[in-house]
């Protein structure tokens, strides 16, 4: 496996591989998110307690899930950066962090807008909300560190250390609704046993979650390809990818 994996540590090979994935990821993201959201907004029945306000769930839950999922990916990437010092992994830090930050923002915003009619408040300093806000600041901090140094390798290393330390926050977010008394409702989907939702609501939610997974992947891949080109711009292959032919073999 290592022999197969090794060439992708190089910018050009990684760029080409990601280029093959890009259209599939983007296409699946567009189709699945559209189906999930339209199904959820138009066809799923209203909730007997929360009425139509619960329809926010079809973006709130997926965005929160992949805000945490992307952070887990970021932490693994940070580990690779610190241990093996692979350049592609360093650039992936810059690709994952902004996508994760936007997903976290979406989960916080949709949560606030859902909280207003249901709890009577936009914001409450309870464990789930506060730990998710910390996740947002972690993403912003990682990005700030990445760009804070003139040498991009130093920046990537500093950002990786913060990303790795911050991963402790992910299980805290996940279990916060069980560990502390929270205004936030418990998990809708549990791994063991039946979920509490009827399938007419569960299906669009699952499709939306799957769609957000591809959306997250597509956005990260697009940004990573940009970052690879940016860092390899001095090489002829990168110039050629941007439609600029380097004809005198410098």
């Amino acid at each position, binding site marked *: 496996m290592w022999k197969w994996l090794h060439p992708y540590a190089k910018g050009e090979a990684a760029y080409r591989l990601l280029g093959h994935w890009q259209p599939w990821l983007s296409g699946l993201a567009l189709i699945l998110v559209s189906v999930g959201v339209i199904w959820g907004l138009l066809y799923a029945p209203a909730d007997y307690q929360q*009425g139509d306000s619960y329809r926010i769930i079809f973006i709130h839950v997926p965005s929160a899930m992949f805000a945490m999922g992307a952070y887990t990916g970021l932490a693994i990437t940070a580990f690779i950066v610190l241990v093996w010092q692979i350049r592609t992994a360093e650039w992936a830090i810059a690709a994952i962090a902004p996508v994760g930050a936007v997903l976290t923002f979406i989960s916080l915003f949709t949560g606030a*807008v859902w909280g207003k009619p249901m709890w009577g408040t936009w914001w409450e300093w309870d464990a789930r909300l506060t730990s998710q806000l910390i996740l947002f600041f972690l993403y912003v901090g990682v990005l700030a560190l990445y760009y804070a140094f003139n040498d991009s390798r130093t920046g990537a290393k500093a950002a990786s250390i913060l990303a790795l330390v911050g991963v402790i926050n992910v299980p805290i977010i996940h279990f916060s609704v069980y560990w502390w008394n929270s205004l936030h409702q418990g998990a809708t989907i549990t791994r063991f046993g039946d979920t509490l939702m009827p399938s007419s609501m569960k299906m669009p939610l699952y499709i939306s979650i799957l769609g957000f997974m591809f959306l997250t992947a597509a*956005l990260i891949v697009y940004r990573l390809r940009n970052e690879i080109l940016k860092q390899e*711009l001095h090489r002829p292959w990168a110039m050629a990818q941007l*439609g600029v032919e*380097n004809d*005198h073999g410098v």
Partner: protein
Amino acid sequence: MAFDSWQELIWMGGYGWYVWLAYGMTFLAIALLTIHGLLTRKKLRQLAVKKQQQQQRIARRKQQERNRSKLADDSTS
């Protein structure tokens, strides 16, 4: 379909403002992230063009210098 008319769909049983605000902001945030990515790409392309012109200028100057020194060599011999 859970709604009988467009008005009902927009009204969302009184929660319309909240539901559509949440969906609108989500769409906006993802759209901005995508546009930012596309703009980065465009900027990279401009940078590559600039770099190429620079390299061509350097190559041309080197060629001129080579020609000049050749002429000088020819006249002295």
